[in-house]
């Protein structure tokens, strides 16, 4: 790997690492001031435990090729057998550490759904267990060389299925076990700090260039197009969500802009390396509209997805992943056409419906996402249920009332004499 590629990959790794704190503030600002530190902690914690687990076994379980193809083996545990005298080592090492940031942020996504009532001790165990039992297998199916979804021809450039659909449906499973917050949906609090939310959104957008464009694992023409797609899908989605809100609710809101941007970024994540510019704009615009309505589902079906992880990440990821079936454009990129890896090790890409590929790719996307949803939901539900039986996952009603910052961490975000960035209510 030449120095240009190495430099880009290391920069991308830092960009994606920055996304977890960005997510923390995005969620934290939306939550009540008495819970903001707990939200930040749930996210920062992922950056502590997951990268270590990933380097130790997670990367191997996700990418070390096995014959059975259900999950990886331990051949790459602690990157054993690799040292810097080997020419292929830098590429292998950089891939591992780059993807560690993905492994870290995926469980962090779930924190937004369980906000305000999950015991931190339960979260602390849920995160590594979920990462090993759910994240690693699904990642293998999507991204390993002989992962069955990849071989079937399903496409996922940066983790729409393995990250957003996966974590999104896991979030639903988690809140079904956890239960609704006290008083929800009748009582609720508005975001305690919209400035924090906007700050988090900006950081997420910035970091997402590493997330998507870094997934090319190098710096070339594809990387440029992925960067363009990521940028414009976010803009389109921020706009489309805002327009829907303006027409439906009466105002352009910052929360709408922030949510739309994130929805667009989520939706373009699986598609960014397979579609051209116009398609990226369309995918963003569609995702913005779809997710703007999807966040209302929780009121309809009465599940307390506190900060709309299901509405934005699950629905956004699913929409983007399915739309690849329409917009995939290998001719633009010069990809060989077909399914799975070719004999030369290059990924073969089926065109979408609008580019002459018929309904085949749509079919692969539906099957892959369907399988991921089924597995993730069942496994995540089971993990939460077992945790609940063993230690209880929910804080007491008194603790919930007093706030998680104080009761879980003995910290207060805003003392009465300081105004900080919140109103302290």
């Amino acid at each position, binding site marked *: 790997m030449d120095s240009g590629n190495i430099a880009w990959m290391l920069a991308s790794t830092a960009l994606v690492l920055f996304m977890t704190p960005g997510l923390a503030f995005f969620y934290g600002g939306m939550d009540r001031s008495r819970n903001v530190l707990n939200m930040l902690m749930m996210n920062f914690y992922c950056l502590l435990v997951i990268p270590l687990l990933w380097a130790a076994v997670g990367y191997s379980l996700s990418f070390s090729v096995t014959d059975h193809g259900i999950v990886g083996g331990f051949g790459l545990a602690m990157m054993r057998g690799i040292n810097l005298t080997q020419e292929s080592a830098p590429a292998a090492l950089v891939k591992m550490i780059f993807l560690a940031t993905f492994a870290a942020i995926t469980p962090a996504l779930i924190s937004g759904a369980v906000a305000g009532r999950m015991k931190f001790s339960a979260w602390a165990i849920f995160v590594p267990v979920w990462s090993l039992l759910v994240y690693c297998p699904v990642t293998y199916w999507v991204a390993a060389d002989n992962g069955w979804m990849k071989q079937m021809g399903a496409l996922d450039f940066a983790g729409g299925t393995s990250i957003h659909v996966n974590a999104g449906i896991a979030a639903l499973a988690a809140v079904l076990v956890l239960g609704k917050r006290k008083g929800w949906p009748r009582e*609720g*609090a*508005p*975001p305690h700090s919209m400035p924090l939310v906007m700050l988090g959104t900006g950081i997420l957008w910035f970091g997402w260039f590493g997330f998507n464009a870094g997934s090319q694992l190098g710096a070339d023409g594809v990387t440029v197009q992925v960067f363009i797609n990521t940028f414009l899908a976010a803009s389109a989605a921020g706009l489309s969500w805002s327009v829907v*809100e303006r027409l*439906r*609710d*009466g*105002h352009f*809101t910052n*929360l*709408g802009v922030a*949510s739309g941007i994130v929805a667009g970024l989520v939706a373009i994540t699986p598609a960014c390396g397979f579609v051209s510019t116009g398609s990226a704009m369309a995918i963003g615009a569609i995702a913005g509209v779809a997710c*703007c309505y999807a*966040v*209302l589902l929780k*009121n309809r079906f009465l599940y307390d997805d506190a900060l*709309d992880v299901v509405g934005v990440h699950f629905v956004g990821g699913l929409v983007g992943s399915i739309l690849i079936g329409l917009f995939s454009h290998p001719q633009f990129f010069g990809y060989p056409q077909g399914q799975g890896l070719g004999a030369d090790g290059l990924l073969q890409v089926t065109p979408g419906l609008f580019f002459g590929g018929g309904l085949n790719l749509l079919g692969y996307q539906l099957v892959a996402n369907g399988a991921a949803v089924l597995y993730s939901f069942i496994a995540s539900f089971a993990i939460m249920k077992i945790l609940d039986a063993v230690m209880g996952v929910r804080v007491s009603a008194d603790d919930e009332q007093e706030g998680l910052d104080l009761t879980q961490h003995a910290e207060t975000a805003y003392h009465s004499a300081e105004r900080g960035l919140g109103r302290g209510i």
Partner: protein
Amino acid sequence: MKLITAIVKPFKLDDVKAALKGVGVEGLTVSEVQGFGRQGGHTETYRGSEYAIDFIPKIRIEAVVADGDVDRVCDAVVEGARTGKIGDGKVWVTEVTRMIRIRTGERDSDAI
């Protein structure tokens, strides 16, 4: 001695402060409070859900004055704080039975 307490709109604080200085009030205490009267709150919408925000931020001003100054000071507060629109606030007067300047030990009217 009397305690003058005033609840006013936050952006009127400077005007009230200037008016009080104009009638010779040399010390006062200001705090940020929330409340509602006839003004009522407003509604905010976040991701399609509406939230009723009942409380409105206000500023509370407190000053202890000599009995003879009460009328003048109240007039100054009203003058400084009034906009004519709903939510201007209120002023009220309560009795102060004792006051001590901490640094010197001066008491009552010597402490004003």
